[in-house]
């Protein structure tokens, strides 16, 4: 590093460590000496393994973030929630439909939302969680699927819900229902898979599989490229 790095004090589960201010919470925990097992996954903001709750010294407000996507700040008191025992309802996608009747059987607690918006406030992805719960309640699976899409299933919403809703599992079910039954299937894709299964495209590919290197290179170098 060509510039002097400032150090900050953070408190991992109450214990003080001094770390460079450029680090993420995750890097800072490792800098402090933790060999992470839980609470660490993709390290890029996609997997939801590293949900973290923190509070700044002198403040009462609890904040949340993904440890891999949040920079440390001086006076940060933090703890991770690497696992949350949320319930998942098992279902057979071929036997249910995007209907309130079916959804009630899988996740009845969704309909007991108190409207407190704690889930929305806590979401590290800035998803309007309570809104998609409302969409599910009124049977609008398309809208629920759309606005819940960026969910990482980190579980922070569930940790704050007074109605014990497991938002991320409800949302995933809603997205699968939408994609299976409301979004239309790709018609040409069905046609293409039929042709492959019936062997109609075998001859064309086998001609290439058995072609020699020179022929393949010539074909490749002169292939037409779609604009």
């Amino acid at each position, binding site marked *: 590093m060509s510039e002097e790095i400032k150090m900050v004090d953070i408190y991992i589960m109450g214990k003080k460590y001094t770390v460079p201010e450029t680090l993420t919470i995750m890097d800072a925990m490792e800098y402090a000496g933790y060999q992470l097992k839980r609470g660490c996954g993709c390290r890029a903001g996609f997997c939801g393994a590293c949900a973290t709750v923190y509070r700044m010294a002198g403040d009462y407000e609890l904040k949340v973030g993904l440890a891999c996507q949040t920079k440390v700040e001086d006076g940060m008191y933090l703890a991770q929630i690497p696992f949350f025992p949320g319930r998942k309802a098992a279902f057979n996608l071929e036997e249910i439909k995007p209907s309130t009747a079916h959804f009630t059987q899988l996740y009845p607690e969704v309909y007991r939302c108190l409207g407190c918006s704690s889930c929305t406030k806590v979401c590290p992805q800035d998803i309007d969680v309570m809104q998609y719960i409302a969409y599910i309640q009124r049977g609008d699976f398309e809208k629920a699927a759309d606005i819940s899409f960026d969910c990482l299933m980190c579980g922070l919403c569930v940790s704050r819900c007074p109605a014990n809703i497991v938002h991320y599992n409800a949302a995933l079910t809603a997205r699968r229902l939408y994609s299976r039954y409301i979004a239309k299937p*790709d018609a040409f894709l069905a046609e293409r898979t039929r042709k492959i299964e019936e062997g109609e495209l075998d001859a064309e590919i086998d001609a290439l599989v058995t072609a020699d290197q020179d022929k393949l290179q010539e074909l490749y170098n002169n292939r037409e490229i779609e604009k």
Partner: protein
Amino acid sequence: MTYTPQLRELMKKVEESRASRVGVNYPRMTPEERRDVLQKFHPDYIVDGFREIAVGVDKGARMPVEMADVFEAKSRVSGTELDLTADPDYDVDVLIIGGGGAGASAALDAHKAGANVMIATKLRFGDANTMMAQGGIQAADKENDTPAIHYLDVLGGGRFENLPELARALVMDAPLVIKWLEDMGTMFDKKGDGTMITIHGGGTSRKRMHAARDYTGAEIMRTLRDEVLNQGIKVVEFSAAAELLLDSEGRAAGAVLLNLETEQYEIARAKTVIIATGGSGRLHYRGFPTSNHYGATADGLILGYRAGAKTIYADSIQYHPTGGAYPPQLLGLLVTEKTRGLGATPLNIKGEQFVYHLETRDVASSAIIRECEERNLGVPLPTGITAVWLDSPLIELTHGEGTVERQLPAMLRQFQRFGVDIRKEPMLIYPTLHYQNGGLLIDADARSTVENLYVAGEAAGGIHGTNRLMGNSLLDIIVFGRRAGRDAAAKSKDMAVPAGLNLEHAEAYNKALEESGAGNGRVSPILLPHYTHR
């Protein structure tokens, strides 16, 4: 306000030239130019980054020194008291090691075929590179495209070194995989009439990149995982495979699992074993940062190799041209190729483009390294490294306002978190260690050279030759995961429960290692990278 005043000053060059670059395509390299830049600048060609492996079935084969270090290492279970004659802790038809996309796909098809299946995974189920794949998945499912055209792209991208029967399986199964995922309720980007929206990736001749915004891998992984759980398939998390077990005839017959939390060993006996442990980016070849998952430590490679499975192209590593370079919190993180697919172009310090934005990954990476190292036209960063710009604001100039939020929500969010608005400000990128092109050798049914041992996903090699194209990895994990699952289930049907479980292969390997003088006290698999402050 993340970019420093110096960087903001340099950024002006990019802004000045932007209007003149809209809609202008930089010329592609000729085959000769491609060869030249690869040989001079691709890390695969840097001789001192490699050495010959001293032991095992591929003794003398070339591999990166960091990989050779974990190959030339003793078994973790050496000297541990393990009772292999007692009733095992788990007893199944198909043991799948690894809980990513390949493992989940294998589990679903093996379960469907009637096998008793178990997934053992080192971290959480779904903790895998699959989850991080952003840009898309290829399949020839348009009128103007066929699997044969896809095949030619795969081979050209792979420098014609792909194993033909594996590349054939990849492209022919591709539309079937998309259909399988569509039927499972995967939320692909579609038009109102159901038509999949597809774009180009580096090295594609047709627009066949299917996506789910820029969370494609995450969407596929969470769907597969949800379905595995729906099917009631047994999943054991935080249980890393420490060594494979063989039966009295030298066939794969299970694994020794290490509970990462209690540090106790457990025995899993299985008629067939599928290695689906992914790649090795966390070995940080040549000191590169990586876009890989925390768990990508080559575990399956070394376990398979000790058991006698041959490797292929172990010396071929993919560096993704667009790894994050700044702000420092994003170092090495993947900037999805979809960013370039949508029209963002790499630029040097003068704000000039120096390479066509959709060259294959190996060529694009080499060109970026050349721009920084040889031509000295990289952008110097306050962190001491050099990078090039990726002009993401071009995307909305080309495709209209709102495109980034709609098509690249993960990228937008990730950079916003650290103070960069990629709609208005260009990104700073440099190649990052991304993918292991080679791996354990398999056939079209994902069988390794050891009986009853299968390999699927990034741990397998030969499919992509020595350079994989974007969108063919999400594809291959499912194609070969499913093939492995089906074949392993069928094989298990007529098999007796394996007898004479043993670790003799690991002992023999240790002995050979000792005799060779290599090893130097190392133990592998390492299971977790070591990032604690030293």
